[in-house]
């Protein structure tokens, strides 16, 4: 946004109060000025900080709830201020919308002036040539017109845009790519943000858990969590079914995870296979425009609970894989079996160890540890009786213990393949197998191509905007005894040291070209800075120490 605010016109002293139109114009100029853009950039950076200070609802809603519990006084106030969804809050939106508006407001006049610049001719020198830092005088043995023509060819060969001015002055300019690149960078950035908004609005994201050997249809009801965009209807979910054929996880020798792999098959509505792929953390699968990612996993011990029903006959209300919540550090999983149909109601806390290790700790007390690998699965079951409060909203993995009393003071420890009796002859619990389930993230983001294209163009535009420099060269040839006196001046608006070097080479090239000019003798005398020594006047005196291009 390199537009500089034109000097704001102030009302003349003594003139009546400024008109509303003038005020608005002034406000508009201020709005699209770089100062405003800078202030808005800082505001954006500062506003983003809050998003990293507080837990964010779209990322981790549980941590927001925990924060609200831990800070009963400040929490609700912060919540009202939008601190738990900073990037979706009204004030954050206001900042970036203002920045985008300022960006557009600044890009329009800049584009116009770039077009105007490309249409107009390179301007005349604004000062005496001798005043420019890059300045050289060459003596040529050809008439002025031929000398200018030779310089013109050199400059054209260096891809300068050229213009002849009255008085025989040749003006040359190049480096428009700087401004063009800068404009492209900003437009591409806008494109990227449009893609981001489009993807957010028309895409969705959600998670589905599938147990090994089972299937889950891509339907809203099967999602554990579902975050649709504003314009995404559930009817837009393509119909397919995912089957988890196998899940495998491996560990490094130090116990940290090394690999999760879900072997997935996607089936269409009639059961035909659409795709089959092993989905690992960095290798998602694409089905019907939906990307399927491996994001988490857990254990589903196969548990059979047999109890006496109300009529005294044995029933098995639980017979199959039981989804449990895995602790990512210890790999110990917790789940619950809820039997609200019994009287009194029964609840079982189920803990599964993947590799139970018992030992003797200090003082002879037994210690418990867990090997993260599935080497010795053991189920620990603790029974409760009373009121499950099943009508209240609660997690499927835990029991609401407020209305429950323990069945016994010791839990049942069931080895793999074993069966144990519940206290009081209530029934039995059998641990017949272990399955794993995979938590898959399914996402559709139609904005990705726009975002990717915008990002690529951001880089394409950024490089010339930083490295190309705009520079001008002027050439004037005057008749002189024996031919012409050729004077050159150069000006770089950026990258001055590099241009000084370029100018030196340019002068040398012009010098060679003058030597080759038809009709001219080979020898050309170069008199760098042949101009009379300038008068040392205050201020201007500082321009005099200049490089001596091509000095002999």
């Amino acid at each position, binding site marked *: 946004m390199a537009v500089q605010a034109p000097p704001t016109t102030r009302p003349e002293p003594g003139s009546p109060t400024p008109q509303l139109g003038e005020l608005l114009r002034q406000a508009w100029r201020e709005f699209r000025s770089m100062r405003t853009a800078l202030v808005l950039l800082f505001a954006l950076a500062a506003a983003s900080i809050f998003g990293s200070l507080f837990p964010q609802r779209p990322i981790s809603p549980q941590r927001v709830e925990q924060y609200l519990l831990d800070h009963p006084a400040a929490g609700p106030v912060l919540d009202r201020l939008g601190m738990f969804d900073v990037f979706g809050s009204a004030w954050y939106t206001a900042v970036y919308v203002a920045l985008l508006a300022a960006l557009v407001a600044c890009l329009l006049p800049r584009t116009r002036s770039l077009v105007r610049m490309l249409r107009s001719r390179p301007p005349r020198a604004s000062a005496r040539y001798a005043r420019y830092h890059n300045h050289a005088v060459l003596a040529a043995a050809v008439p002025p017109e031929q000398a200018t023509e030779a310089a013109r060819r050199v400059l054209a060969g260096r891809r300068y845009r050229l213009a002849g001015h009255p008085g025989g002055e040749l003006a040359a300019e190049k480096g428009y790519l700087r401004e063009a690149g800068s404009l492209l960078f900003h437009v591409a950035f806008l494109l990227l943000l449009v893609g981001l908004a489009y993807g957010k609005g028309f895409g969705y994201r959600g998670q589905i858990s599938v147990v090994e050997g089972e299937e889950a249809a891509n339907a809203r009801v099967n999602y554990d969590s579902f975050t649709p965009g504003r314009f995404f209807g559930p009817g837009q979910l393509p119909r397919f079914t995912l089957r988890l054929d196998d899940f495998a996880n491996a560990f490094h020798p130090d116990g940290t995870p*090394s690999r999760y792999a879900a072997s997935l098959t996607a089936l269409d509505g009639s059961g035909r296979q659409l795709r089959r792929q092993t989905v690992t953390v960095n290798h998602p699968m694409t089905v019907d425009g939906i990307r399927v990612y491996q994001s988490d996993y857990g254990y589903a011990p196969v548990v059979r609970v047999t109890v006496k029903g109300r009529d005294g006959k044995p029933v098995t209300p639980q017979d199959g894989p039981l989804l449990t919540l895995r602790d990512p550090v210890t790999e110990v999983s917790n789940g619950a079996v809820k039997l609200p149909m019994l009287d009194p109601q029964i609840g079982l806390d189920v803990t599964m160890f993947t590799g139970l290790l018992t030992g003797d700790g200090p003082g002879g007390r037994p210690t418990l540890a867990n090997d993260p690998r599935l080497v010795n699965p053991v189920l620990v079951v603790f029974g409760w009786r009373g009121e499950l409060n099943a009508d209240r909203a609660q997690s499927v993995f835990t029991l609401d213990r407020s209305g429950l009393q323990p069945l016994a003071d010791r839990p049942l420890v069931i080895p793999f393949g074993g069966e144990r009796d519940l206290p009081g002859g209530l029934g039995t619990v059998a641990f017949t197998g272990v399955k794993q389930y995979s938590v898959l993230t399914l996402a559709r983001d139609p904005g990705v191509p726009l975002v990717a294209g915008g990002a690529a163009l951001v880089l394409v535009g950024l490089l010339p905007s930083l490295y190309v420099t705009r520079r001008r060269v002027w050439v004037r040839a005057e008749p002189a005894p024996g031919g012409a006196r050729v004077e050159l001046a150069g000006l770089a608006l950026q990258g001055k040291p590099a241009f000084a070097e370029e100018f030196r080479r340019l002068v040398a090239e012009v010098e060679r070209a003058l030597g080759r000019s038809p009709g001219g003798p080979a020898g050309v005398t170069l008199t760098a800075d042949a101009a009379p020594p300038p008068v040392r006047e205050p201020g201007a005196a500082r321009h005099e120490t200049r490089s001596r291009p091509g000095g002999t």
Partner: protein
Amino acid sequence: MSSATLADLSDTLVWLAVLSYVVAAPLLGLELAYRSRWAGRAGVAVAIAGLAANLGAALTRGLAAGRVPWGNMYEYSMMVAAVVVTGWLVWVARRREVRPLGLFVLLLAALAIAAAALTLRVPAGPLVPALNSGWIKVHVVAAIIGTATLSLSSVFSALYLVAERNERRAAPRPPLVAGGARTADRAEVDEAIAGYAVEELEATEAAEAPATGRRLKDLLPPAARLDDLAFRTTAFGFPIWTFAIMAGAIWAQSAWGRYWGWDPKETWSFITWVVYAAYLHARATAGWRGRSAAWVSVLGLVAFVVNFYVVNTWVVGLHSYAK
């Protein structure tokens, strides 16, 4: 060698690198202060030894863990230091006069390693599955180079602030008069001419005036040089940092299913990006050029430090690889 031996060797080498940098820095300080060529050459020699130890520490750690040596923030800091020092040495080979600036470069490198070794160190270990991707080479290498160059540019900006204040106090500059005909963008031309005058004035002053004082502020290169250095390192580092963020987004898209999720690390790299973008804008804005712009660049370094030490250690996110 076993991986435990390699890891131990790495721990020794890392402190050897810090030690070398800390020894080399005052030698270059001597060159800065007394224009002692001898001290400068010795400083470079010690710094090269330090770089060898630095790279050796990274290599042995990589071998110990059986992977690239930038899998956590401790190793990342080590690599940033190595890149900063390598960049400075390459620069010295091309332009001898930047050699004394090694004083600040090496102190930055030593500080980066020492702070990481004391706060972010973790035992050499394998990568978690999310990091196990080809993108770790692209994204993290770009981030390392971007961090190294951008933080270096902030150091130059900070030095510029000191030098500029010093020069301003020593000799208030008379206003420059630039004449000439009115053209479409006369302001630009005048400014360019005035810019030369200032640069040259400073260059001649610096060449003529012997270093009279012995305080740091009297020994610095001319403010205009430092400002130019700061801009050029930013111009080099900013596109790389931009690319690092983009490569990270592509990786996040394949690992986590979204290219951007306002994870604390993502948020802070965005903040850093915005601050350096603001610096580039400020440098092209009348009224912000010079000191204000330099302060923005210093703010960028603050953002990096927060991203490193605060976000990695205190804030929980998907990028929490430090602990």
